[in-house]
């Protein structure tokens, strides 16, 4: 069972306390009605599926409840880093 560092609790906790919440750094457009169909499709559905470094969101759902960002290697399943929502991409 992986240990995940929650950047809000600043503790490594077992993965069963967390829930994955999909790819990170996909911001909802400020004015969705101004988006073209193609741009809106990309926002809704188009996701990366990298072999290796992957930026994704996690929620410390059975802990502090906060959403945060993480860089995880999809090959080794190792977390490179986690950081608070709103901080720049690492």
């Amino acid at each position, binding site marked *: 069972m992986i240990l995940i560092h929650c950047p809000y609790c600043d503790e490594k906790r077992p993965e069963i306390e967390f829930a994955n919440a999909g790819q990170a750094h996909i911001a909802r457009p400020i004015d*969705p009605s101004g988006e073209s169909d193609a741009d*809106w*499709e990309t926002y809704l559905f188009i996701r990366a599926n990298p072999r290796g470094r992957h930026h994704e969101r996690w929620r410390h759902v059975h802990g502090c409840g906060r959403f945060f960002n993480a860089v995880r290697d999809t090959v080794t399943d190792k977390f490179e880093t986690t950081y608070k929502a709103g901080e720049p991409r690492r």
Partner: protein
Amino acid sequence: MSGFRLETGGRVDRNQPVQFRFDGTSYQGLEGDTLASALLANGVMLFGRSFKYHRPRGILAAGSEEPNALVSVDRGPGRFTPNLRATGVEIHAGLNAVSQNRWPSLKADFGAINDRLGMFFPAGFYNKTFMWPRSFWDKVYEPAIRQMAGLGDAPTAEDPDHYASTYAHCDLLIVGAGPAGIDAALGSMDTNKRIILIDEQDELGGGALADPALWPWLERSHKALIDAPNVTILTRTTAFGYYHDNFIGAVQRLTDHLPKPGDGAREKLWRIRAGEVVLAQGAIERPLVFEGNDTPGVMLSSAAKIFATRYGVAVGKAVVLMAAHDSGWHDVFALAKAGVGIAAIIDVRERVDSALMQEAGRLGIAVHLNHSVMGVSGRHSVRAVQICNNDDYLARRIDCDAVLMAGGWTPSVHLWSHSKGSLKWRDDLGAYVPDQPNENVRCVGGCSGDWDFGNGAVIDVLPTPKDHSRIKAFVDFQNDVTAKDIKLAVREGFRSIEHIKRYTTNGMATDQGKTSNLNGLQIASSALDKPVPDIGLTSFRPPYTPQTFGALAGHAKGALFQPTRTTNIDSWADAHGAVFELVAQWRRARYFPKSGEDMHAAVNRECVAVRSSVGIFDASTLGKIEVVGPDAAEFLNRMYTNPWKALEPGRCRYGLLLKEDGFITDDGVSARLAPDRFHLTTTTGGAARVLNMMEDYLQTEWPDLDVWLTSTTEQYAVIALQGPNARKVLEPLVEGIDLSAEAFPHMAIREGMICGIPTRLFRVSFTGELGFEINVPTAYGRAVWERLMAQGAQYDITPYGTEAMHVLRAEKGFIIVGQDTDGTVTPFDAGLDWAVGKKKPDFVGKRSMARPDIVAPGRKQLVGLLTDDPNVVLEEGAQIVADPKQPVPMTMIGHVTSSYWSETLGRSIAFALVAGGHEMTGDTLHIPMPGKTHIAKVSGLVFYDPEGARLHV
């Protein structure tokens, strides 16, 4: 020597005889024996039948790598454990073990015909033969294969034992308590590290248990470790899996070795998080591959030494060694000194260390270098071996009753591989050894390739003058894979060891190829004429040895398999004969049958009571979220399709929640209690999902909004009081709230007291009748319910369940998200466009309502269905076609989502999702069902009181 028990030696207690049974026969062993050593001491060589050919099999090894001697232990009803290795079953008074995979008996086994038909059972036999004809599979092939194949019988009775589990944390976890593991523990004992030392055997020592010279050291070390307060010793404990971040799963066997199992847990699952892991799992000796190497009495050389020195048992009286490695010579010297008769040493090598030759000479043991065993005489036990010179194949016969194989050593890299550590090939060992770690772990001793067993030759199959394609020289004993099977797989085009493994099943039995993988690799390597590292490496996966389901399940079975959520009123429903159903882990009353009523009759009665007088319903499971803060209205306005900012305090609104893709995900009636406070409700199953979604938007998209979300689902008991007499029942019990239609209209909320308890009282209806939903603090739910029942007695107040609730809402055209929608239904599809705020610039899912797919014609839309025959209740899920005469497969244009008998209307009603359904009102559709195709007409969704006159009273 009496029988095969040596006069002296071993760690068994010669003053403690133990009576036990094997296949119905009573035997005597000694305290400290395993089933294997005790039976060998009694001269038993035959332990079981092999998986595929049903060949007689004896003991190959002395430890957990044993592939052959699988037995079942019967400890009474429900305590039947199959597929235990006889080498790991500690005997105790009353032990009752039986052999497996034989019928009618171990000695006369019917399935052994498979062995004579061996030429018809080549590698890939099952894949090839039973492919055709298809119709034979169910009736002929599968029953026949099931009868003949398989390992032990699965127990059928419920397991009466219970299983404990625990978490443990330590700085240093050592797996394996042989000399290397013990040294690692001693080396760290004087630090302040918390240390856990695990070993699968009943006592510490590993290989040292078979070396009497080490016993004094072992005793001193054991005592030092026991005395160290920071060291925890777990014996009879198997570390079966190595998971991420140094998380190790281990099972401790607590009672199987005891004469009486007692009331304690049978096994205990340990989940250990370790700072550092030291693997000291040792190495496993490799068999040699030659014809007849599976005859009972042919075994690993190291095993024979363990039986002699640890258990005081001779595996034979005239023993032959077939060696490719020095270690076998040392074993035989130890056997000779323990009093075991040695018939000869045969070594495949042309030359060995002169010291070995001298010692053999000193002990008077005949030696045949550059020779190989080419055959074994005897079926149920060894009578002789035929050996031949490797160059000229000149043959001779040696009488003997046991053959020892010394084929070199394989480091036990199982847990290392689980942890994703890399391996490197060592030509000199003919084995993979640990290379780069992936966790904070290191290997010590035998499992790192570090041993002092001497040198050896790496060899695939022993030389023989016989036709290789006609002999059975076994590689995988448990799965009955021979050298010729692997060669055949290569001839048929398989190149990767992963494919060869799956085609031949080499290494795929319950022992995961502990004794067979490396020999299989060597044979494939020779056949392909490629070095071993070029043909790949198979992976080990947990568990290291088979574990019981009981240990893994622990207490999570039966009623404790998953939590059941109950409301405060549940106990009343239970006491009043409710039939329950599970809804999203909630136990909900489905209906309340009176004596003699079936579900249909009860639901009809409950529905009529609500429409004609008053019904009472436990709605406590509704999801509830308290939304508080200066921006609460703005937040809800962005989340829901409806406008929320203008909603006045004291009023309620039906809220429709979409996902960003425009599809309905939840709904519920919510109330504004104050300018900055809302009481939201969600579907029973959607509560957690909705809260998660709202938190997501609040935390990550709109962190500027000043809003707090709190789950209050379990803070309130909710009682729905529905029907024309609802107000009359409620009025005498309520204080501080004017219930009159003028003061308290439909879709309003008031706060006050009921039965002296604070309440949030909603005037809402999911039935179409005058209705109230009474929210009180959870602990008062049943008390208020009982007061309402008493107060309503004069109106024959009727408790109703979820089934009647479904019928009543369907009569009124109210949808259930998740039943009438499936994650691809938009508000427009569901006929809920009235709930979408047209003037709102944005809300979650709004942009998607203009997506090309969603504005395209032909979408499935929710409609009502009325069958031509009013007595036909369609099946939910039934498919709908436009033309029943079209050829099969027909074009399905939709399906029934909800369907009920309506006692109020005296006919059936249904909802369906139908392509273009909104344009089809009045059209006839067809619903093919088993036996008959039903006819129905498309209608609107509201079947009862379309004007809503009954609500506003």
